[in-house]
């Protein structure tokens, strides 16, 4: 596989994507909502409502958690402990939801879009191998999700530390569990979803069908990864390492076989099953 050709395919797709306001604005809103708006509003509110009945209820809920988890929740007052719990545990799955949603939205259109626009004809007649086309498209689908996550995660970290950190004696976020999550667990889950979505995108007849199909694929992956991500934050570090490794194995198997879905006749739109 030739690296320059792969990067050329990915770069062309990314340039096109970043020039498409129809795509960028909704995706930016989604990332902004999860990474900025929710923590930016919710965490200060928690700090400001220390004596409310709601805070007492949340404190009761935290009190029902296993002692090991309670020990991990930092803070001296119920409000600080609640804010810490929100920041570190309850909002954790957004780290998966946002990149998964963005990458799948991009990936769903990538192959079928070539066919619908007619640009697939150029790729079909080009010396690119199907593996190079597939890998370029995969990178182009991964980058927006990860870019949103990297920027969003940085902003989220700032908000969390600025709003809750003062009461906890300084910067406390990201915690070790979050680093494992972001760097080791989230990537293979996105890869798993994209491996399936790119296959679908190569096979379905229209972009609309690709979007619908990708939703069906992404939803269970989001639910599963949401649960796993939440659970891992409460668990010892080796759990994240094991889960991440297993997810990587599944992702690699799916990605290696995924290139077979790309066929020149599908890019031309003349395959019997396209």
């Amino acid at each position, binding site marked *: 596989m030739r690296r320059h050709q792969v990067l050329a395919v990915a770069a062309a797709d990314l340039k096109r994507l970043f020039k498409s306001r129809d795509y960028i604005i909704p995706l930016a809103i989604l990332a902004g909502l999860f990474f900025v708006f929710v923590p930016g509003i919710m965490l200060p509110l928690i700090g400001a409502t220390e004596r409310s009945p709601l805070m007492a209820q949340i404190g009761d809920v935290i009190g029902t958690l296993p002692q090991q988890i309670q020990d991990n929740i930092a803070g001296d007052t119920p409000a600080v402990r609640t804010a810490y719990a929100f920041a570190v545990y309850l909002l954790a799955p957004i780290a998966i939801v946002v990149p998964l949603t963005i990458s799948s939205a991009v990936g769903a259109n990538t192959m079928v879009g070539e066919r619908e626009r*007619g640009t697939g004809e150029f790729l079909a*007649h080009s010396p690119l191998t199907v593996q190079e086309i597939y890998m370029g498209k995969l990178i182009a689908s991964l980058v927006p999700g990860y870019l949103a996550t990297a920027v969003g995660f940085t902003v989220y970290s700032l908000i969390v530390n600025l709003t809750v950190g003062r009461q906890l004696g300084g910067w406390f976020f990201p915690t070790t569990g979050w680093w494992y999550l972001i760097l080791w667990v989230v990537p293979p889950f996105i890869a798993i979803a994209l491996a399936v979505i790119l296959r679908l995108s190569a096979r379905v007849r229209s972009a609309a069908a690709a979007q619908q199909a990708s939703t069906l694929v992404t939803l269970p992956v989001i639910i599963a990864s949401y649960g796993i991500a939440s659970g891992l934050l409460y668990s010892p570090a080796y759990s994240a390492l094991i889960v991440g490794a297993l997810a990587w194995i599944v992702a690699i198997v799916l990605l290696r076989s995924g290139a077979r879905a790309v066929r020149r006749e599908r890019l031309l739109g003349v395959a019997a099953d396209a």
Partner: protein
Amino acid sequence: MNDPMVPAIEFRRVTKLFGPVRAVSELDFVAPTGSVTVLLGPNGAGKTTTVRLTTGALKADDGTVQVLGLDPSDDEQGQEIRSRCGVVPPKPAFYDQLTGWENLEFAAKIFEAELDDARDAAVRFGIDHALDQEVGGYSTGMRTRLALARSVIHDPDVLLLDEPTAGLDPESSRAVLDLIQELAGRGRTIVMCTHLLHEAEGIADQVVLMDDGTARAAGHPDELAAAYMPEPIVVFDAEDRSVLELLTDLDGVTSIHRNGSVQVTLDDLARLPDMVATLVTAGARLTRVEPVTPTLEELYFRMQRAHREKT
């Protein structure tokens, strides 16, 4: 580079099926290296599928295709073929959000060509002034010029042009035909699909008449004329056209067609001097006596008619 002894493109009993539809059916044709081959036929004749089989974008269900001595259905050889072919599809498509230059730059990277060559190609087709604009705002003519530029940035050995002048203004059409002649002059092999007969006039070394996915006839236009229109045709005109009625009764005239002037089909061109003498003796003041080379259009319809009669 090209080996002139090896046909650039060779189809042997090639069949391509799309479900129950035979898009190409036992197609035979050879495009010699450095020649201009025109695939002529109505819509649905199988011309586009033939182009796609040539680059290996599609694989034949039966028969063999050889391009530059290589097999396009083989992954590695197909890649080599595609790197040496330039294709202009019937409806050139681009990434509309990207500029003309960004599209050319992309193609240059894919074909491992120099960016300077991409710039030169744009200048050559007169699209360099619009390279900073997004392609979404291009007219049909501009898109075709960009497609032409994109097809030659890697200096291909084989150029496949599928209806390249569709929707073009006369100036752009002329640019396409000039390109074909220039590249052919440099030893490149050109295959052009068209249903516009006048486009093939004058540039075709070989015409392949396609219909229903197969080649009905193939050869140089002169060979086809000899095969399908063996009887010479001569156009007569005179100041007083009534005298030309005498032609009807002359020996050797096999048919006569009046359209202002008179078009006469003869059994032998050697009869012409005697015919002229007869008319002049009868007092005709002739203004035109011209043996006619049949146009591709006449050939095309004659071949179609011959095929229908045979089947």
